[in-house]
């Protein structure tokens, strides 16, 4: 599809979405009236910038069903955001929404190289979280064999992976590493498995983590992106080039804005991702501020797909830590740790305030062997990590080494940051 044809389709879909929310959702009707927006005069995609934003707080203020655009009887599914950062929010789907969701996730799976010949183990939590069901529908739509194992019970995951000859794994990237480590403990060689590809999402991760997963599990790890507020998984996904996530631009309009000025960033610059749904019936979203930071990749992809790519999520505007006035993203710390020999992929960041002074401490798990060695080596290690972090972040950081497996493990999203400051 040419860019021009795509824009025609986007405009048509946006115009009917605006009509839908302007007539069916009191929240948007009021906002449009306040801002004197007449959706009949919405002429081009550039007019998007005149529309109001929707933020997480709007979803909470209208809890539970206030933002639904269809009567309850047309809703066939209700999900809830995973609530990593506060109160849960509620989203709904019509039958058509579920169909589109399946199609879009199937598109992501296909992009990652999954076919109907694959056996796909879905180790995302099933339930209110959209990850499990979303991938499940997509995989069924594709015709793959789905193992709806859900999250948890790592040894059983591995047992099933062996016995059922799983070829594709779906979970969070941190859980993929837990599986890899557990496999090692159980003395199972990943190359004896049929596993060949992984689709990871639901939390930000780094390129270094991808290499680690690839090496430890012997697979090709791909990233995919979605959020329950706009649908769940299926918004964007990586192709086999593993170099940015193709956005399903026929169903979502994505903007990248400066989180402070809310003006578009220069093409290719980093900013906050803002999503408008184009085909959602039950729960349309206009300019939803995701708080996720990314950049659009303007260059065409080697795979030939024409949908624009976005870079993997680089952090969130709201988990961005401001320490001594410096912006720090946990992912930056993760990147450094991955580059250092002897550290395990588990870490925790603790921020405290002493005498109005911010103090950041990074707890790093290190391989057992290191602790049996002399103190001197440990000190060298700490100094090394400190120096690397200081040059990456531009601030001084305390580093503590802890033994393997002393930090809390999570089968879902990991809690990496503990902010003890009362700001």
């Amino acid at each position, binding site marked *: 599809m040419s860019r021009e*044809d795509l824009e*025609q*389709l986007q*405009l*048509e*879909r946006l*115009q*009917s979405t605006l*009509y*839908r929310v302007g007539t069916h959702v009191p929240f948007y009707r009021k906002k449009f009236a306040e801002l004197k927006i007449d959706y*009949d*005069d*919405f*002429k*081009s995609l550039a007019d998007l910038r005149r529309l109001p934003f929707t933020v997480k707080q709007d979803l909470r203020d209208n809890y539970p069903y206030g933002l639904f655009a*269809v*009567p309850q*009887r*047309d809703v066939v599914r209700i999900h809830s955001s995973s609530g990593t950062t506060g109160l849960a929010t509620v989203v709904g789907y*019509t*039958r*058509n929404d579920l*169909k*589109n969701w399946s199609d879009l996730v199937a598109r992501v799976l296909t992009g990652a190289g999954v076919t109907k010949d694959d056996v796909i183990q879905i180790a995302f939590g099933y339930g209110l979280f959209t990850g499990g069901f979303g991938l499940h529908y997509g995989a069924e739509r594709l015709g793959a064999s789905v193992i709806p194992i859900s999250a948890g019970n790592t040894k059983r995951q591995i047992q099933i992976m062996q016995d059922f000859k799983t070829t594709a794994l779906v979970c969070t990237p941190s859980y993929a590493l837990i599986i890899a480590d557990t496999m090692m403990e159980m003395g199972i060689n990943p190359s004896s498995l049929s596993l060949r590809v992984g689709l990871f999402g639901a939390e930000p991760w780094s390129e270094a983590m991808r290499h680690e997963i690839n090496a430890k599990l012997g697979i090709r790890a791909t990233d995919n992106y979605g959020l329950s507020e706009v649908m769940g998984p299926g918004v964007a996904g990586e192709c086999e080039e593993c170099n940015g996530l193709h956005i399903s631009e026929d169903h979502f309009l994505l903007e990248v804005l400066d989180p402070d000025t809310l003006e578009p960033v220069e093409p290719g610059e980093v900013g906050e991702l803002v999503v408008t749904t184009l*085909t959602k*019936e039950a729960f349309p979203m206009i300019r939803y501020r995701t708080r996720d930071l990314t950049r659009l990749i303007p260059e065409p992809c080697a795979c030939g797909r024409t949908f624009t790519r976005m870079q993997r999520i680089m952090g969130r505007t709201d988990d961005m830590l401001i320490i001594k006035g410096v912006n720090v993203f946990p992912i930056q710390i993760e990147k450094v740790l991955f580059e250092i020999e002897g550290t395990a992929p588990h870490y925790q960041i603790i921020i405290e305030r002493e005498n109005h002074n911010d103090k950041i401490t990074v707890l790093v798990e290190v391989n057992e062997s290191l602790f049996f060695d002399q103190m001197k080596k440990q000190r060298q290690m700490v100094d090394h990590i400190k120096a690397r972090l200081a040059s990456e972040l531009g601030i001084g950081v305390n580093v503590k080494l802890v033994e393997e497996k002393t930090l809390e493990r999570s089968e879902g999203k990991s809690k990496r940051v503990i902010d003890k400051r009362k700001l």
Partner: protein
Amino acid sequence: MLKIRNLDAGYGNLRVLKNISLHVDGGEIVTMIGANGAGKTTLLSTVIGLVQPTSGSIAFMDQDCAPLASRHIVASGCVLVPEGRQVFAPMSVEENLILGGYVLQKKEGKAAVYRELKHQYDLFPVLRERRNQLAGTLSGGEQQMLAMGRALMSRPRLVMMDEPSTGLAPLVVRDIFKVIVQLRKEGNTVLLVEQNAKAALSIADRGYVLETGKIIVQGPAEDLLANQDVQRAYLGREKID
């Protein structure tokens, strides 16, 4: 093939079409459904150049057609089968068809017209049977077929049909719709305007729902069939699972 953007049109001070955007790709059957007075006929009249848009753009084969006269739009391959057939009653079936081939004759000569005539007779065998009969004496369904055949005689790229099912018995409607599917198989592109939402959506690839001059829903035809709003308003029932 056809791309309409932000089209406004009306009569005098009456704004009938409000900010209409739609497109038809080659090889598609696209349907526009809506109740009486929604603006369906006005839309087709605007595309074919009978009504001038007040704003917005219409591009056919990447060419802006707003400033063109109807005959040029038809010559570029966009034809309209008007509502109520509008066949030339005092002329024979064959004369009606040959009139439809006027554009083709100017382009490719008489032989091409007769080749096309044979093709239309193959597509609508009943017209061959009645080739010498006066068009005004045909039944409603036959007149509809004649109107379609006459439009197809110019070998158009896009056929627009305005309510071909109006006033026809259900069995006849089925025959007409079968022909539309057949047309697509032969590589034609169809924009079908209908009140008979269910029949139109069941043969179309995509659809638009027009209500008081605005497109309120659009999407794949099967999605529209499942859309509860469309069901309530146009299919006259709610789907009971």
